């Protein structure tokens, strides 16, 4: 994860790798994140003389300074914070699902959890919901149902293929129902759907971040607290039970926590794939699968990758923007292929 373009950081052959200590890695990532967030916040279509950042506040009356201040505070910072929150939330949910399914390819996008959330959100919008206070819970319900279905279908037989096939089916079902909803939608609803569907970070604003940030933080803490249980699940479901983790309760709790995390993220940012797949994988490659460290490092890594993707999305076709999903898929698609061929080999 030291490389700024993580998808290219192919690990060396399985000879003994020198691993940085987890705390070191976490620290490095946080520093990188801080640097990247700063870089991202200081670049954009509006040129702000950041060398004189302090002056922007020293001259409160100057309209130009006020304008720059506002661009910084109302446009850029919320966007950067949003990227951090969404990235870390998606990444940790991916890591946790991989443990739950005991399957390194479990990812909210691939197994249908994101599209399930999307279905919930679209359903709410078509039924007339406008406020996130309704759309987000609806997305949660959609995610929950999809996760439950993926779990039921994907663990009938062990192995990666079964889960992925279940994901294909769930995604297909969700997409078709979304299609039906879209067909039924009125003009106003269609308009809301279009905005929502654009699935980007453009919706960033402080009033939304004011609840989303603590929400993601809280759920991340709850998930990190389960690190022992998640480690035990890696051994196997029977083994986890032998180690004192009541399996049904544990499964239910993790499925619900994941849906509580992914649902609202989908409701505010749309379906952004691959972050939940790529980031935990890279962290495992450098650090191993011990969730005590994997989860916090994944949080930082997810924030880092998402901030980078958002930065690129904003800069490449300036003054327009690329949809962030294009960037993450551009990184994630080849990564998934690489993983699949590697597993076969």
């Amino acid at each position, binding site marked *: 994860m030291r490389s700024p373009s993580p998808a290219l950081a192919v690990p060396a052959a399985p000879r003994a790798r020198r691993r940085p200590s987890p705390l070191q890695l976490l620290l490095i990532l946080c520093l990188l994140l801080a640097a990247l967030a700063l870089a991202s916040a200081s670049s954009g279509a509006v040129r702000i003389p950041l060398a004189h950042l302090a002056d922007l506040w020293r001259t409160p009356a100057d309209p130009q300074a006020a304008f720059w201040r506002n661009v910084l505070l109302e446009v850029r910072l919320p966007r950067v914070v949003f990227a951090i929150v969404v990235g870390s939330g998606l990444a940790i949910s991916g890591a946790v699902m991989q443990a739950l399914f005991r399957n390194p390819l479990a990812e909210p996008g691939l197994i249908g959890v994101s599209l399930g959330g999307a279905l919930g959100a679209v359903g709410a919008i078509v039924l007339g919901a406008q406020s996130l206070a309704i759309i987000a819970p609806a997305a949660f319900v959609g995610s929950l149902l999809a996760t439950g279905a993926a779990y039921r279908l994907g663990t009938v037989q062990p192995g990666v293929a079964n889960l992925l096939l279940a994901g294909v089916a769930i995604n297909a079902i969700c997409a078709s129902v979304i299609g039906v909803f879209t067909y039924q939608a009125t003009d106003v609803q269609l308009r809301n759907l279009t905005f929502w569907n654009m699935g980007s970070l453009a919706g960033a604003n402080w009033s939304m971040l004011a609840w989303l940030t603590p929400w993601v933080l809280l759920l991340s803490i709850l998930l990190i607290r389960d690190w022992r249980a998640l*480690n*035990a699940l890696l051994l*196997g479901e029977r083994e986890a039970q*032998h*180690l004192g983790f009541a399996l049904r309760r544990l499964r239910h709790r993790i499925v619900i926590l994941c849906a509580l995390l992914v649902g609202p993220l989908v409701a505010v940012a749309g379906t952004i794939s691959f972050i939940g797949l790529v980031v935990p994988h890279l962290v495992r490659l450098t650090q191993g699968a011990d969730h005590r460290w994997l989860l916090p490092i994944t949080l930082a890594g997810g924030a880092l990758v998402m901030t980078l993707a958002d930065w690129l999305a904003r800069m490449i076709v300036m003054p327009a923007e690329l949809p962030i999903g294009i960037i993450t898929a551009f990184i994630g698609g080849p990564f998934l292929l690489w993983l699949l061929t590697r597993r076969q080999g």
Partner: protein
Amino acid sequence: MLHAESLACARGERVVLRDISLTLTPGKLLGVLGANGAGKTSLLATLAGEIPAHGGSLQLDGRALHAYSTAELARRRAVLPQSPSLSFDLGVREVVAMGAYPFGNLPASRLETLIARVLALADATVLSTRRYLALSGGEQQRVQFARVLLQTLAARAEDEYRVLMLDEPTASLDPRHQVQLLQGVARIAREEGVASLLVLHDVNLAAQWCDRLMLLTRGACVAQGTPREVLTPENLETVYGLPAQVIPHPAQADTPLVLFASRVEA
């Protein structure tokens, strides 16, 4: 103590255990022998509290086993199932340390001492800095064994009753490590008074290391007692469907040696 009386168990419609009575005595090894599908693994799962008993009684220290929570049980008994499958990249020490999970936060130094001790018992000390996935099958088995040993020994009060259950623990081990593993079990049984239940395939290994043996056929107990009492040609033929001779062990007194027929009668 873990005590079963007229235990019965069914999986779906199929009765897998009937009328099993046994006691796991502190400091003693009970070996369970039987042909494939005789119910050995079901017996272990029932005694571990994993699947419910359908009849008879099953008690741990005088209290019904099903009245214990999953977490409580984990502090009293450790189980090593057959062929554990771990496909994620963990360090050997991380895997072994999982044995301490039921006990919450142990002081780091105590945990370190324990890990060192169980690694030694499982002859896995040299593996301690390796990655689990880079180990051979037999090495992985030893690491898993160290993990359940840790669970058996962690935070144990003086004279606290603990049970160790192993399902075919020697299956993927070479002869030296088979002996070493059983020696380790016997040692903590002797030193710590741990009660052990071992499902085994190798009759002679069982005869050599177990204090008592139980022979299972189609879910029922054929015989239970010391190896000498139990390992008779008649019992062995009932259990395995293969004629066998039992002779005194040339090197170890009081230990029977079983020689199975070299061909199956048509």
